[in-house]
């Protein structure tokens, strides 16, 4: 077992075909340590989201290599990528909760992806995590009856409930106030310390930079700065 949860080598990525073909990433090299909290920064259009979706098995790797949890993603099968995603937790900028499911049910979906389980235990795990995120009173609420910040915290709970090996988050704190934003990132950090959960997060939020182990800056599809903090 290597120390790197993610190992990106010579990664290129293109969008479009022919005339419209545009390169979004150029020879990206990045090794992310297990249990660390890495922040991706950079101006709009610099390729942060593209890199995140490639590492998160949401896109096919066309050029270069990504080893994710010891598995090569270059030329991997679609089914392999789907199975790999079950070991990851995604937190999107938009919460993307299912409007017909309660807060608890949304979180339970994060467990059911691993198959039939004991419904009572699933519910207990979901309730525990929602409680930790300050939503203990909102378990039976539909997303429509929750505030933006509450919805985002439900989405965080859904990503964390199955103990993912890696959390990928794109501006997860945008919808949160200062305190819950800090609390969420603090939670990622603690998970890194206690369970070895690796977090890769895109953010522009200067308040959380202090919590990061490493800050990687992208510009025009290239890594231009890589600050490892001690």
């Amino acid at each position, binding site marked *: 077992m290597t120390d790197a949860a993610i190992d990106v080598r010579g990664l290129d990525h293109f969008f479009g075909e022919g005339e419209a073909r545009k390169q979004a990433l150029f020879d990206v090299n990045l090794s992310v340590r297990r249990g660390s909290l890495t922040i991706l920064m950079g101006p709009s259009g610099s390729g942060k*989201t593209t890199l*995140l*979706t490639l590492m*998160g098995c*949401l*896109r096919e790797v066309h050029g270069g290599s990504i080893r994710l949890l010891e598995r090569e993603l270059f030329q991997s099968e679609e*089914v392999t990528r*789907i*199975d*790999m*995603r*079950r070991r*990851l937790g*995604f937190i*999107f*900028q*938009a919460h*993307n*909760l*299912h*409007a*017909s*499911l309660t807060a608890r*049910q949304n979180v*339970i*979906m*994060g467990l*059911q*992806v691993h198959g*039939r389980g004991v*419904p009572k235990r699933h519910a207990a795990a979901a309730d525990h995590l929602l409680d930790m995120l300050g939503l203990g009173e909102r378990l039976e609420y539909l997303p429509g009856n929750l505030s933006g910040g509450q919805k985002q915290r439900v989405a965080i709970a*859904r990503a964390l409930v199955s103990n993912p090996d890696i959390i990928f988050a*794109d501006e997860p704190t945008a919808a949160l106030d200062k305190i819950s934003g800090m609390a969420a990132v603090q939670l990622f950090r603690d998970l890194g310390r206690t369970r070895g959960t690796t977090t890769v997060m895109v953010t522009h939020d200067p308040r959380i930079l202090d919590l990061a182990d490493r800050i990687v800056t992208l510009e025009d599809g290239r890594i231009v700065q890589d600050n490892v903090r001690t």
Partner: protein
Amino acid sequence: MTTFLTRLLGRLPIGYLQLTHHPGRLLAALAGVAFANVLVFVQLGLAGSMAESVAIPYRLFQPDLLILSPAESEALSDAATLPRQRLFQALVHPDVTGGTPIYMGRSTWISGHDASSSIQFFGIAPDATAFFHDALAAPLTSLSLSDTALVDTLTRFVDMRSFAAAQPEAPVPFEIQSRQLGAIGTVSIGGGFGGDGVFLVSDQTFFHLFPQRSSATPSHILLALAPGADAGRAAAELVQLYPPDTVRIRPVSEAMEQEVRYQMTERPTGLIFAFGVAIGIVVGIVIAYQVLSADVADHIREYATFKAMGFRQGFFIGIILEEAIILAAIGFWPGLLFSQLFYESLAYLTNIPIFMTTERAVAVFIGTIIACAVSGMLAMRKLAAAEPADLF
């Protein structure tokens, strides 16, 4: 309900929760499924009713007989006749113990001002009771009185209540074909699709009504067989006694099935019913498809999120099938109820034998589930639009 479905499916019943989250759409969808069910039930009901009304006249006969018909006759009520000679020829067969001719003719009964009914007459020898249904034995004997008839209480366009008390001692007079007849009893047969009612008269009375018909050319001949004789074999052997292609001969039950099949598959009415059923099924599939694909389109981001979380294709198929089955299983019942009401009104208004059968209800229920599942499978194609990489 959610708890029950969670147990059943081994996962949260996403489809159920999605459908019930939009009660308006759910109701519209159920109404659509019910409507398609009614379409199918109506067509099947009419088809079944036609089959039933084709079968009813055959039930006047003893079931273990053979029926000898003209070669060109597929239907009992066809106008074709055959020589009575055929009856005597049949008697040489050792298994044939007797036979009787039956004469059929159609006439219009002007029963009132504006009212006219098309009546199918059966002319029967009054002493041939052994060939007919046991319940007819006594009334048939009374037909030996000249110009008497057993009238059909289910005759359409006529108020038959005045005939209810008809007795051999107290005949109820009526006029048909410019002749005065006396009703001396009633039968309940019903005209079905070909006519409005069926009257039984003696052969002599039949010739009074239809003077152009001769006793030498009956419409059909019923043959009785010795007890224990094999009807199928006897029929095959009898056919050999006649010049080729002059008669059709088969057990009564088989003749009945044959005509039902003929009416359903070769006559326009039967084909129209089949076509109607097909339309009903298509309407059902289209409605269910509309609802299910709109539902997929509405939840495309949620599905993309589930894809990003690592749910496989089978999970999505499961959700859409769950929705399809819920629509089918709930929408069926109002459809059944309305169809039942429709059958009852139609039976009341037209006297055709239309009624719900368990087999039909079960078949339509299963068909509804299959049709909705097909719609679900078609709606599944919309799922390709759920692209998890677009969520960031």
